[in-house]
């Protein structure tokens, strides 16, 4: 059976409040949303992930388990966030799933080239969207074994 008692932490990087709400709704429906954090732009997302600024109290020892990343973001866009994340040894093992409206080939290619762990398009049909989010959560939070914490390496 699924281990849903395990502590999970999802970072949702999404500027559109509607999308935030629908995504949260979907995650809730999948009973996977124990701990979800939302950042509304790229800069804030980076602050959160790199434990700085408003999130200076966070520690790299407790990384998020999954980042759901929209591409079109204010200030720093999603691909830039991805690049920064994957270029830093402290953050590059964090699974990042691109969750976006776009199915542009160039976004797909750039995303994977930068080290995205997955790419999902938000379907227009909410039923489909919900199902997609549920499966994503199930896989990445339950089936997938996350990388060990950084301090364990040293």
């Amino acid at each position, binding site marked *: 059976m699924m281990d849903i008692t395990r502590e999970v932490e999802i970072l949702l990087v999404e500027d*559109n409040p509607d999308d935030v709400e629908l995504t949260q*709704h979907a995650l809730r429906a999948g009973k996977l949303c124990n701990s979800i954090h939302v950042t509304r732009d790229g800069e804030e997302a980076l602050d959160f992930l790199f434990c700085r600024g408003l999130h200076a109290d966070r520690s790299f020892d407790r990384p998020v388990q999954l980042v759901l990343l929209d591409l079109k973001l204010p200030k720093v866009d999603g691909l830039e966030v991805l690049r920064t994340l994957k270029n830093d040894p402290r953050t590059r093992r964090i699974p990042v799933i691109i969750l976006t409206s*776009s199915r542009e080939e160039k976004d797909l290619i750039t995303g994977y080239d930068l080290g995205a762990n997955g790419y999902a398009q938000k379907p*227009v*049909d909410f039923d489909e*969207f*919900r199902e997609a989010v549920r499966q994503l959560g199930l896989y990445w939070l339950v089936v997938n074994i996350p990388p060990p914490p950084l301090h364990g390496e040293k």
Partner: protein
Amino acid sequence: MTLLEIQKSKLILPSFVLAVLVLLLAGLGAYRQGRRNVAAEQLVRHTFQVRGELNTTLSLMQDVETGSRGYVISGEESYLEPFNNAVQLVPQEIQRLRQLTADNPEQQRRLDALEPLISLRVRTAEADIVARRTRGPSAAEQTLSAGQGKRSMDAIRGTIAEMAAAENRLLEHRSDELRASNAQTLALFMALVVLLAGLLTAVLFMVRRNAAALQRELELTEKARVYAENIVDTVREPLLVLDAGLRVQSANRSFYQIFRVTPQQTEGKLLYELGNGQWDIPALRPLLAEILPQHTSFQDFEVEEDFPGIGRRTMLLSARKLFRVGNSTDSVLLAIEDITEHKKAEAMFRGLLEAAPDAMVIVNRQGDIVLVNAQVEKLFGYGREELIGRKIEILVPERSRQEHAERRSEFSAHPHLREMGVGLELYGLSRDNREFPIDVRLSPLETAEGTLISGAIRDITERKRAEDRLRKLNAELEERAVALKIANQELEAFTYSVSHDLRAPLRHIDGFSKILQEDFAPHLPAEGQRMVQRIRAGARNAGQLVDDLLGLSQVGRRELKLEVVGLKGVVEAVLRDLEGEAQGRDIEWRVGELPFVECDAALIKQVMANLLSNALKYTRPRPKAVIEVGTRQKDGQAVVYVRDNGVGFSMKYADKLFGVFQRLHRAEDFEGTGVGLATVQRIVHKHGGRVWAEAELDKGATFCFTLRRGLEDEGAA
């Protein structure tokens, strides 16, 4: 003949003269010796004669003695007969002896002594006879015994013996002389014979050597003659040798070949009567006539005549006096050159030159214009006669003349083909000082007068103008291309933004409607529920439309990734995708043999997906759908078709079928955005193929397409 041999041959004559002299000498010697011998013989005979006469005289005297003594002793008269006879003959003998020895005073003296002795003896004998006759035998015997007669007889004998001895001595002396003379002569003869033999041998040797040399010389001369004849025969120009009367002495092979005549028709004939008299040319007669008397010659006298058998030809005649060693008669050598082909070639060359589309200028290595064509006159405005002999720089603008002359010298030193429009910007200068851009193609022209340079000049004013126009157009085109690129980028940005921004609100509408439906269902009346349902359907529709449009625009922007694709596999994959849609329906799929084609796999899959899902959609009203996929040949091209037994459509709307948003059915009956077939068409066109549909209302439809590459060549797999 070598120098030595010549010198030897010069010795022949003196040797021969010497031999003749020796022979004459020998003859003279022989003659003299002969004469001497005859004289000697006469002397011998003379001696013998004298001795004979002496003997006769002695014998007569003995007759006198014995006759007289016989008579004295016997008294017989018969003894007196020889006595008388002898007495009578003795004086004659004496006389004869005197004559014979007249040249010898010694013998004459002895004769003088002999004569009285004889007379004494005769008188003694006569006295004895008289004594016998008159006094008898005793008296006579007394007389005899007195011995008078004996003493005179001994004296006579002695004298005669003396004379004979003298003659003998003389004879001996002369014989010795003769012998010596003979021996001398013999020795001389021997010497002369040896000399003569030597000389004659030498002469013979030299003559033989000379004869051999002469033979060799003759052979050489013969060889030289044959050689010369061969050369004459090999000469390609016809040659005639004429005698002083201008009759043909001989002609070479070439003459017979070129004029197609035989030696019988030629040799011995008067030049002017050859053929049909074509050589009888008034201007030629005086030229030929004065060659021999005036020692003149002429060269390249041009003649154009009709020649029997070979037609009209142009000939160049050259003639000169021919000197022949060993032949005192004068001859004229007439050389004939057939320049008809040359003339034709020249005419052709001039024709070509005039017909050339370019202005053609031919210059020599010094840059003097040799030849121009009409195009040059037209282009530069000069008459031909104004240009021939002038420097080519007359056609070059003043400012470039110096440079042009230098370049020309360089080119003359190493002539090569120079193509048009290589590197330089050249300008021509016309007679009225107008400059115009030209293109020049240079090529060396090998001629008998040396290397000439031919230049083809083309006025490129128009081309320059066209080039300028083209450049301008290109610039404009480039500008437009940039603008187009910008527009495309904008379009891309637009579609990107559409995909993001338009889909998002639709998604939200559907999402919140769904939440409303689910979470607030108890508070919504049935009509409200239905409205929410409609909102969701509209949102999904719009979302589908956006997705389809994006797909269509992506096809347009996408670069084809060509690979060889088996269509059968593609169709099978599409059918798997359609399984959900097909669920619960009675469908017969007839998938025939399909080819391998070179195409973009993803796009061709989209084509098949669109066509097959259309077929599935429009057969929905049928209790049993029959959908067929296959290949057939049309106009030598493989055509892939998808046939269904669905509702079909009227062919009068066929032209609208592939337009964007064009729909032939109502949305209530068959859902759709009107983008699918437009996408199919765009993909097929992008592959260079063609797509069309055949249908009849309510009787099904067939969609066909071809792809330019692969379909025609590849057989069904």
